[in-house]
Structure formats: structure tokens, C-alpha cells
């Protein structure tokens, strides 16, 4: 295993875990969305590193997947933010009650 690959794989794992933690413990929806975006970034990093990016031009299939993934992530984030505005508008808060509806 090449050192660059090692570094980025561990980075990806760490960022993914950080994202999960952030999603689970954050109170504001906005922060949870940031955490979700971090997780997405980590997965993309993993895909490209595993695709051989550390040694040369990486596998083009994961690259295309990541590009698609980035656009999906921005779409989902944009919609989530619109919904968040509506949430604030309807409930006066941009947080979700963890005990509600469970």
C-alpha cells in the first residue's frame, strides 16, 4: 500500500466517523446537514483513493460516480435548506425535537 493512499483512506474513515458523530449529536438541522455533507465527502474521498488516485489517474468510473454524487449532494442540501426555512416558518425553530414522533 502506497503511503498517499494510506493517508487519504484514513482521512476518509476519520471524516466519515466525524460526520456520523456530528449527525447524531447535533441539535440544529443546519449542523446535521453539514455533518451529512462531511460524510458524503468522506465517501467520495474513499472511492477515489481506492480507485488508484494515489498512484496515477484513478479509475474513471468512481470519478464519474463522485461527480454525480456531488451534484446529488448539492441538490439534496438545497432542498433540505428550503425545507429548513419552512420548518422555521412553521414551528419557529430550526431544530427537531428528538422525542417527537418516535
Amino acid at each position, binding site marked *: 500500500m502506497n503511503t498517499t493512499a494510506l493517508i487519504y483512506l484514513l482521512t476518509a474513515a476519520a471524516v466519515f466517523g466525524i460526520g456520523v458523530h456530528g449527525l447524531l449529536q447535533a441539535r440544529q438541522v443546519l449542523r446535521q446537514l453539514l455533518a*451529512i455533507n462531511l460524510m458524503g465527502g468522506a465517501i467520495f474521498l474513499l472511492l477515489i483513493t481506492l480507485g488508484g488516485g494515489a498512484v496515477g489517474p484513478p479509475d474513471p468510473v468512481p470519478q464519474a460516480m463522485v461527480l454525480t454524487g456531488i451534484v446529488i449532494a448539492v441538490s439534496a442540501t438545497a432542498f433540505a435548506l428550503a425545507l429548513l426555512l419552512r420548518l422555521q416558518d412553521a414551528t419557529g425553530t430550526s431544530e*427537531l425535537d428528538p422525542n417527537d414522533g418516535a
Partner: protein
Amino acid sequence: MVHEALIGLVFLPLLGACLAVLPGRFGTRLAIVVGLASLPFLLLPVTLSVLREGAWFYTLGGWSAPLGIRLYVDPLALLMLWMVALIGGLAAAHAWHDFRPGTAAGERFWPLWLLLTAAMNGLFLSADLFNLYVCLELVTLAAIPLIAMAGSATAVRAAMRYLLLALLASLAYLLGVALLYNSSGTLDLYLLPDALATAPAPVTAFALALIGTGLLLKGAVFPLHVWLPQAHASAPGPVSAVLSALVVKTAIYLLYRVGLWSLPAGLLADGAMLLFAVLGAGALIYGGVLALLQDRLKLVIAYSTVAQLGYLLLALPLASLAAWQALTYQMLSHGLAKAAMFLAAANILHAIGSDRLSDLERLDQRTPLSLFALAVAGVSIMGLPPSGGFLAKWLLLEAAWRGGQWGLLSVLILGSLLAAAYVFRVLAAALRREDPSEAEDAEGISAIGRRQATYAMLLALLALVTGFAAAPILELMATGIPPTWGAA
């Protein structure tokens, strides 16, 4: 011709969505005809071809797998596609009156509905793991705004919760897919069994755990169901119907595909199957009890979905032909009955302005047809004859008995008694005696209300008919048994 029909199943709703975005009433109406009404006619030739020649692939762009993306149609996919066409179609007919094309609400509603239809059809046909991710996201992003469209604060909150958890689920799935791609070299579901045979086992196991968790979360399988009840209960009626009947099933469908098609035989340990069964049993009991405790009609129905999804996992350890037929039949009959119930509940909500059980006594004469639809669909949910739900449960019970699975047997029976309890509780609330003097405005129900009640009734009748006309469907399903169960 059959290839064009298959492609049309995805692309006509997609183009319909484009049409519906364009301004004016005409575009939307055309879009509904092109994208929704056409589906049964497209499905007919595809069904005939599967009946005649068995399952087949279609290679998109002529780029063969593993490089390109393939579509795959087999009996299971056909079943799901028919459900989208019929249940989705009737729910759309119901929605037509609340979201009329040409109105502001209609303009917002129909493009999303069409995209949702396209996404579900695409998901049921796709043979590619990453393409399935895109389809899953499209399903989510098209469905959730439809929930929020109900407008209430509860609906918005439920939509937000659903969105966050759905995004988390998609990411877990995507991470699993990323690992599988790198360990096996392919994204094609049906090339995976061979490719995975040589892949390192811990990677495969971890990837499958991620994919499974993601799908269980999206499929609202107990104990990951927390987002479902409020989301399904607070959405507009036809949306609730489609969410419960079809959208949650997309994740379960995918779970079957990954678990039963794309793995080398024997890879998925008995322990995993047992886990599914335990989750299913938990769902059945927990959902049933919670449904019994709700005091709003739509919440009862939503918790009932949590419970009924349990059946779809419960029988996995049986791995027999009968179990397969039972699972698929449950998929179908639950879809029909649950959609009927949600549409009926929507009509009731319309008629009396509340869906509290204590208010249902005001109802009775005003919407007899909807109430009847609710009752008939309830029969199927309880698994009592004559209904599709009964046949599905009979098959499950028989399979459990033959397999000597006494625990499974007792859970099944307990689950159906619970279902009977919550369904009859609703019906009892609706039959409570009203003051006869109030009964006089019985004629006040509008023509639209009557038509909407008819759609609910049609679905309920279909649930009833599936209690008799099972033989051809089950025979078709038998030809589509998962390869890992295929020894039977």
C-alpha cells in the same frame, strides 16, 4: 416493441415530469396521460414477454456490463411495476381532485409525482448498484416535498426528519456500494455473485452491513421506523397511500435484490437471516401494539404499515418456494389494502375535518363507501378471508408449519390478532351511534367526494379479488424465485 415498452416505463413519466413543469393546464394533463395512464399498456407487452421467455436484460447504450448499466425485468420487478401502475394510478386519480392541473397546487404537485413514478420504475428495473443509489435519492427527493405539501407544522417536521434519516441511509448504502465496487470490480447486481466469490470476506461483510442498515432505515424496519408514522400520517391522502404502498417497499425490494440475488450462495449467514426475522417479529408486535394505542386514524394506518412490513422480513429464514410466494403476495396485498385505507382515510378527513377516532362517530352516513372501503381493506390487513392478505398469511403459516418454525408461527398469529384488534377498534369508532337528527345531511356529499370514494373502493376490491385470483400470480412468482433459494 417490448424493449421500447420497457424503456417507456421509466422515460415516459420522466418526460411527463418535464411536460408538467411547463406552464398551463394542458401540459399537465398531457403529462398525466403520457406518464401515468400509459403505464399499464406498456406493462402488458413486457409481462407477456416475461411469461413467454422468462426474465431478461436490456443493455443501455449498448455498453455491456460491467462497464455499462443494464435493466433487468423478472417476475418480482413486474409485480412492483404493476403495483406502481395500478396503485399509483388510482392514487393519482384521487389526487386529481385535490391538486387539479392548472391550479397552483397542481402545478407544484404533478411534476414531483411523475418524477416519483419514474424513479420507482427506474429503481425496480435497474441492475446497477450505483444507479440504484441515484434512483433511491430521486425517490426520496420527489417524495418528501409531497409530504411537506400537506402544509401543517407536523407534516413539515415529519418531512424534515424523514429527509435527514433518508440521506443518512443513502450515504450508508453508498459507502457499502463503494467498498463492494472496489473489492469486486463491478456494480452490476447480477455479476456480483461471481465477482464476490473471490473478494475479501471482511470487506464484503462490512459493505453488506452498511447497505443493509441503510436499506432497513429507508424501509422503516423496526427499530429504525421512527420517521415513518408521522411522515405517512401527515402527508396528503394520495401521497400517504403511495408512501406506504410503494415507497417504503422500494427499500425492501432492494434488500431482497441485494440479499437474495447479488450474493454467492451461502454467503449470507443464517445469523443474518435470523436477524431479519427477529426485526420482522419486533416490527409486527411493536407496530401492532402502537397502532392499537393511537387516537388518530391515519396514525393507526401508519403504524399498521410498520407492523405489516415485518411480514416482509419475517419469512426470510424459511428460504422456500412457499415463503417466496408468501412474501411477494404480501407485498402486493398490503400495497393494495394500505393504499385503499389511506385514500379512504383521506376521504373521511375531508368529510368531517378530523381523523380523530373519537370524531369518527360523526361520519357514518356521509361517506358510506369510504367506510366500507376501509373495512374491506382492513379485512386484508387482518389477514382474514376472503382477501389477498389472508392468502399471503396462509402461505406464510403453511411454510412456517412445514419448516417446524413454531416461534414464527406464534408471532404470525399474534400479529394478526393485534391487527384485528386495531382494525376493529377503528371500525367500532366509526359505527358508534350518532344522533339520528344529524344523519339528515347524508345527501350533502359532493360528486367529487363520491368519485374519490370510488378510487378507495376500487383498491379495496382489488385487495379482495387477490383473495381469489391468486393462482396465476403465484405461478409467475414461482418462476422468479431468488437464485439462492432456487433449489426448491
